[in-house]
């Protein structure tokens, strides 16, 4: 398992990963509460971006409604906890199951009936909107009034019930991010990963090579929605309150995809790097503005817009691919061949 994981990964990449991981492991010692919340946010977006990247970056299917899977995961785990006292780790499989079911329905409708490209994206937005409106009128989980987790001042960390200090949430999110990173690495180098990339590049050519494209696109949306749901569980237990208007808001979906777009769609490091850049910088900017006494609530979104614009114009493949070339982190891939 380990052997296969590190197989064909250059040694200095492993070193870099090790240093990065070590840095993240010791970060809470040096970080104050504010910096810790920023780091949690960065990891959260690295995680969700990675999960979204499976569907878009690997298999080429653009989802603009990934807030749906976060929201369903969040509500499922929170409702089980609030109503039945069932802890998040048992709630998580349920959350994943519900998320996967909705992803499978969307996938089936889209891929079975040839809804592709922009229309697929619109379909994903539509389903997220259905959920937003539906949950507004769903009394059992609080409707538009919101669902609240029982909160008390925790001096002890209760990992089993995810109740405790920010530092505990930080390590949970770090663990999730590492797991999903390793999983994506394995997927990308597996048969299904290559088939996804073939579908992304040219679906008809993929079919001509014997790839049952419907089945593999279904697999992509199932894996992606399953991966996204745990982020929702985390979200519910970290923020302690859920409102349909916020949880399923389209901006939540957009925030998820900013990291991978800026970092590099379809790459492993892109979502991670993108999350660091966009969340780190935007929080820094916010902090700076507050420090100098500017009250600018829209500054973050404006910053997102500027970042997106810059990347699309200057580095359409994201920041990671040129950086990787600079650091010679890729397997020797020669792109200097003659252009025709």
């Amino acid at each position, binding site marked *: 398992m380990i052997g296969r994981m590190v197989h064909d990964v250059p040694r200095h990449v492993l070193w870099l990963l090790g240093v990065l991981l070590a840095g993240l492991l010791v970060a809470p010692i040096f970080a104050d509460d504010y910096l810790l919340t920023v780091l949690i946010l960065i990891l959260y977006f690295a995680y969700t971006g990675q999960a979204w990247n499976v569907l878009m970056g690997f298999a080429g299917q653009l989802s603009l409604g990934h807030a749906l899977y976060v929201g369903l995961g969040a509500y499922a785990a929170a409702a089980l906890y609030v109503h039945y006292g069932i802890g998040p780790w048992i709630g998580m499989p349920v959350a994943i199951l519900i998320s996967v079911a909705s992803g499978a329905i969307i996938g089936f409708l889209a891929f079975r009936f040839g809804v592709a490209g922009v229309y697929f994206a619109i379909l994903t937005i539509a389903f997220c909107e259905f959920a937003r409106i539906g949950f507004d009128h769903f009394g059992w989980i609080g409707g538009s009034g919101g669902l609240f987790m029982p909160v008390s001042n925790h001096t002890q960390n209760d990992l089993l019930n995810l109740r405790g200090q920010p530092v505990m949430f930080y390590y949970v999110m770090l663990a999730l991010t590492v797991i999903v990173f390793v999983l994506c690495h394995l997927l990308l180098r597996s048969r299904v990963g290559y088939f996804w990339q073939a579908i992304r590049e040219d679906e008809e050519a993929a079919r*001509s090579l014997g*790839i049952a494209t419907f089945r593999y696109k279904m697999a992509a949306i199932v894996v992606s929605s399953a991966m996204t749901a745990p982020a929702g569980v985390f979200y519910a237990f970290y923020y302690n309150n859920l409102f349909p208007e916020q949880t399923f808001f389209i901006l939540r979906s957009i925030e998820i995809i900013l990291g991978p777009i800026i970092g590099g769609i379809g790459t492993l490091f892109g979502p991670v790097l993108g999350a660091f850049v966009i969340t780190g910088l935007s929080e820094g900017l916010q902090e700076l503005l507050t420090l100098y006494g500017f009250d600018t609530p829209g500054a973050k979104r404006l910053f997102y817009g500027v970042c997106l614009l810059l990347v699309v114009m200057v580095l359409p493949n994201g920041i990671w691919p040129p950086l990787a070339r600079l650091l010679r982190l890729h397997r020797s891939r020669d792109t200097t*061949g003659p252009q025709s």
Partner: protein
Amino acid sequence: MTALLEVSNISKSFTGLRAVADVSFSVPQRSLFAVIGPNGAGKTTLFNLIAGVLKPDGGSITFGGARIDGLRSDQVCRRGIGRTFQLVRPFPALTVEENVMIGALLRHPDPSEALRRAHDVLWRLDLFDKRMQLAGALTLPDRKRLEVARALATEPKLLLLDEVMAGLRPTETDRMVEILKKLNRDGGLTILLIEHVMRAVMSLATHVLVLHHGAAIAEGAPEAVVRDPEVIRSYLGTEAV
């Protein structure tokens, strides 16, 4: 010789236009079978009917004794028919090696085994040295050979080639002809090709079928077909004789 592919009375219309009308032929095992004809004769439609991209309106297609008409193209490929596209369709952002490896993954689910198979195919197609290049950065002749390599990697019994010589210079055409001949001779591969380049057809094909306005007007050995008055009138032109 037994027939590997049997096409019987196949027809396909597009809103009133009969693209392929009642065409029948059989491709013998281990043959090099060429389909020629003027533009719009229905060659590519015929090709797409066999490859599973289009469903025929009538008639049947039998491959290795089993009906394949109406199957999807991925199912047709799994039965053992590989194809190339007239306008090449490599996976541009992937390397040459990965392109071919994806084809090999069909029969060899383990990626490292698929990679080994891909390397074998790349050797045979003179592409091994370029295996790390991105497919999108290749020249046209290389991309044409990559198409053949990728299809070959699926280990087909029958290879469908849609104008692989088009746009190649004469020396490159000869190189491709040599490769295909070798695949046929050494690998026992049956090849069905659509071709405009008569130089390639004459040196390569063992059988020729001529389509005109969707109908088969002649079939047989290449030397006999090019002397057929009907073929000369409708396709080759009198100056070709």
